[in-house]
C-alpha cells in the first residue's frame, strides 16, 4: 500500500482539485492589478480596513453564505432555488420585528433564522419525504416565498435604524467587516461539522449512490431534510446581511437571481451538480470569483448592458482551465509545435 502523506488533510479539500478555481481567481486579481489602479490599495480608517478587496469580501459574503448551504445540498444531489426568497423573508421578518416589536435582538435574530430554517425544512420534506424533484420543490418556495416576504412588509420598503441589526451588515470586527466574521464562522462550523463528524461522509454517500447509502443504514431522508434546513438557515443569515446592508427590507428585490450565483459558485468551486464529493472551500473561492468579476466590470467601466459578455468569457475560461481534456489538448498542441 502506498503512503499518502496528505491523507489526513485531504478530506477537507476533497472533491475536484482546488487548484484551478484558485488559479482563475488569481488570474482575475492579476488582471485587476494591471488594469485597475488602486485595486489592491488598502488603508486603515477609524481602525477599519478600507479598500476594494475588503468590499469584495463584504459584498461577496451573501453569496458565500448561500454557497455554503448550497454546497451541502448539491452534495446530496439536490439544488435549492428558494434561497433568494428566503433572504427576502428573513429581511422582512427582521425589519418588521425591529421596527414594531420591542424584543431583544437575540430573540429577533433567533425568530428570523428559525423561520427560514423551518422553510428550508419544508423544502427538505418535499424533496425527501414526498419525493418531488428538488428543482420543483424549491421553485415553489421561490415563488411563494417572495410573496410571503412582500406580505410581511405589506409591499413597502421598511427602513430601520436599529443599531444591532445595522451592525450585522455594516459593522466591523477585527478591522474587517463583521460579515467576514460571519462567513468564517459559518464556514468553520460547517467544515468541522462535516469533517469532524460523519455528516460529510453521509452527505457524499447519499449524493453518490442514494440506494447504496440507504442499504448501509443511513437515514437518507433525515440527511436531506437537514441539509435543506441548513441551507434555509444560511439564506436567513445572508438575508439579514443584505437587509442590514441597506438598512431596509426590500422584499421584492432582495436576493433576486442570487440562487444562480450561489449554484455557480459551488459548481465553479469543484462540486459536481450530480452530487457526491464536495468542497466548501472551493465554493467560497467560487463566490469570491463572481464577486471579483462584478467589481472588475465596475472598475473597468464596462457598460452594464454588455458586461455579461466578458463575464461569459471568464466563466467559460475558468471551466476550460478546470477541464483535464482541455489542458491535455493544449499541451499536445504545444508539444507538436516544439517538435
Amino acid at each position, binding site marked *: 500500500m*502506498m503512503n499518502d502523506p496528505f*491523507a*489526513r488533510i485531504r478530506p477537507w479539500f476533497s472533491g475536484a482539485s482546488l487548484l484551478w478555481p484558485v488559479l482563475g481567481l488569481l488570474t482575475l486579481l492579476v488582471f485587476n492589478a494591471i488594469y485597475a489602479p488602486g485595486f489592491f490599495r488598502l488603508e486603515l480608517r477609524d481602525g477599519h480596513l478600507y479598500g476594494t478587496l475588503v468590499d469584495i469580501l463584504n459584498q461577496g459574503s451573501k453569496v458565500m453564505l448561500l454557497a455554503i448551504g448550497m454546497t451541502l445540498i448539491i452534495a446530496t444531489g439536490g439544488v435549492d432555488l428558494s434561497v433568494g426568497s428566503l433572504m427576502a423573508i428573513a429581511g422582512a421578518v427582521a425589519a418588521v420585528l425591529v421596527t414594531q416589536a420591542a424584543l431583544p435582538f437575540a430573540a429577533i435574530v433567533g425568530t428570523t433564522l428559525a423561520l427560514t430554517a423551518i422553510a428550508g425544512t419544508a423544502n427538505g420534506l418535499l424533496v425527501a419525504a414526498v419525493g418531488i424533484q428538488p428543482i420543483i420543490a424549491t421553485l415553489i418556495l421561490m415563488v411563494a416565498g417572495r410573496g410571503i416576504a412582500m406580505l410581511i412588509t405589506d409591499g413597502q420598503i421598511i427602513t430601520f435604524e436599529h443599531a444591532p441589526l445595522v451592525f450585522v451588515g455594516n459593522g466591523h470586527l477585527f478591522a474587517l467587516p463583521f460579515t467576514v466574521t460571519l462567513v468564517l464562522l459559518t464556514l468553520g462550523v460547517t467544515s468541522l461539522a462535516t469533517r469532524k463528524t460523519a455528516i460529510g461522509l*453521509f452527505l457524499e*454517500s447519499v449524493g453518490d*449512490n442514494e440506494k447504496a447509502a440507504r*442499504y448501509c*443504514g443511513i437515514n437518507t431522508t433525515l440527511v436531506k431534510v437537514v441539509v435543506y434546513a441548513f441551507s434555509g438557515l444560511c439564506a436567513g443569515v445572508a438575508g439579514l446581511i443584505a437587509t442590514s446592508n441597506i438598512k431596509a427590507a426590500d422584499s421584492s428585490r432582495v436576493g433576486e437571481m442570487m440562487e444562480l450565483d450561489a449554484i455557480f459558485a459551488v459548481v465553479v468551486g469543484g462540486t459536481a451538480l450530480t452530487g457526491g464529493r464536495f468542497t466548501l472551500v472551493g465554493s467560497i473561492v467560487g463566490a469570491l470569483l463572481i464577486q471579483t468579476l462584478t467589481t472588475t466590470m465596475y472598475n473597468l467601466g464596462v457598460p452594464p448592458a454588455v458586461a455579461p459578455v466578458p463575464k461569459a468569457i471568464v466563466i467559460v475560461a475558468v471551466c476550460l482551465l478546470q477541464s483535464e481534456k482541455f489542458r491535455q489538448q493544449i499541451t499536445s498542441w504545444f508539444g507538436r509545435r516544439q517538435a
Partner: protein
Amino acid sequence: MSEPLLNVRNVTKAFGGVKALDGVGLTLRPGEIHALMGENGAGKSTLIKVLTGVYTPDDGAMQFDGRVIAPRSTREAEAIGISTVYQEVNLVPTLSIADNILLGRQPTRFGFLRKKAIKQRAEVALARLGLKLDVSLPLNACSMAEQQLVAIARALDIQAKLLILDEPTSSLDEREVEFLFGVLRRLRDQGMALLFVTHFLDQVYAITDRITVLRNGAFVGDFAAADLPRLKLIGAMLGRNFEELESADSDPSPAITEKRATFLEAQELGKRGVMDNVSLSIAPGEVVGLSGLLGSGRTETAKMLFGVLPPDRGSLSIAGQRTSIRSPRQAIRLGLAFCSEDRKSEGIIPHLSVRENMILAMQASRGPLRLLARSEQDQIAAHYIRALNIKTASAETPIMNLSGGNQQKVMLARWLAMQPKLIILDEPTRGIDVGAKAEIEKLVHSLRAQGMAVIFISSDIEEVVRTCERVVVLRDRRKIAELSGAEVQPNRIMNVIAHHDE
C-alpha cells in the same frame, strides 16, 4: 491452422501509478472459443477495454482481420466487427428491455422506429438464450441475471467476427449457462471467434479451446485447454500452489451441530406484487441457502427480510421477539446485514475511497456524530484488504477504480466489519476468482463457527451445497421445499425445482 483473427502484442496500460497491463499479448483464431483467465485485478477487463476502444493503450499493437486497429470507442470497435459484453452490466435501466437489446440498431422505416419489429426482434434475441420476458418492461424491473442475459442478447444481435464476453455467467445458473453455451458453440461453428472471461473452471473446460492466462497485468501464457489440467491452470493464475484451497473444495457439508435457539423466524412473509409466500428460520451458527431458478424470488426474499421491501403479510420474529422490519436501518439495528447482488447500483459508493466504503455501514450504525477515529478506520481497512486479499493501490483509492471482483470483496468487508448476528449474502462470490471463492467459503465456515447466522444465495448449486446445511427452495416467488442434512445434494435441489408440481 487458420490465420489469426486478432493479434495483440505487447499491450501496456497504466492508471496513474498502477500498471494494469504490462506487455500483454493475445491471439485469437476464427472458430475458436478462447478463455481469458486470471485473478481479480489481473487485468482481464482492462485488456478487453483496450481492445474495444474504451481505453487507449500506452503501448503495443493490435491487428484484427489482417489490419492494424486502434479503435477509439466501442462504436468503432463494433464497426470493425467486435461485439462486447462488459463485466458490469452496462445497459440503461430506465429503458425497456427491447430498447436495450436494439439500441442504436433498431429497424426503421423512413427513419422511424418500427416498434413491432423491434419487439419481435428483441423477443427472438432473448428466445435464443431460452428467455421469455415482456420486452416492453423497463430493464430495472429485471433481476440481475435477467439483465445479464439481456446484455448478452444485445451482443448476439449483431453480426460480429469477434464476440467478447466479460464474466457473462456470473449471475446465471446452470440452465442459463447451458443455453448460453449452446449458442456460443453454434457461433463458433459458424466461424466466429469468442473471447470469454469467467472464474468458473468447469465452464472453462466445458467450452473453451484455448486459454490465455494473465497475472498481475502480465502475460503468463497461451495454452490449449486440453493440455492444461486444472491444477496447472490455477497455478498459472495464482503463481503458487493450490493444494490447500483444493482441499476446501472437497470438504463435505458439515453435520448440523447441536440445535440452538432460532435467531430469526419468518412465517408466511409476502408482499403484494413482489413475493407470494415464504417461511424461513435460522439459528446462530447456521448457514441456510436460498435456491431456485432465476426470478424465483431469492433476492426479493432477502430484501423483504432486510426491510428494503417491507412485507405486508406474515410474521417475523427476531431473537424470540415479534417485530416487523420497515427499513434497512432498522434491520441493521436488529443485527442484520445484507450484501446485495447488484453491487453497482446497490453496493458501492463509486467516488468514495475503499476505506470509506468499508466503514460506511459501521459508521451509519454509530450515527453521524460519533465519528470512527481515523486510526480505527485505517486499521479496519488495512485488516480487510489483507484478510480478503483486496487488490487496490491504497485504501484511499476510489472504489470505482477497483476491478469488479475486488469491489465485491470490499462490499463483503463492509458487512463483516459490522459483526452482524445474521448476514444475508446475495451472490457473494459473483465475479470473484477461484482463490478468493474458496477463501470466501472458508470465511463463511468461520463465521458459522463464530456463531453468526448466514443466509447464502448463489446461482452455483455446488457452492450452495458445499456451504449450506439447510436449503430453502423457491419457485415462482414462493417457498416450495426445504432440504436439510443429507438431502442437501445438487441433484435433489434440481429435482425439487424441476418437478415440484408433478
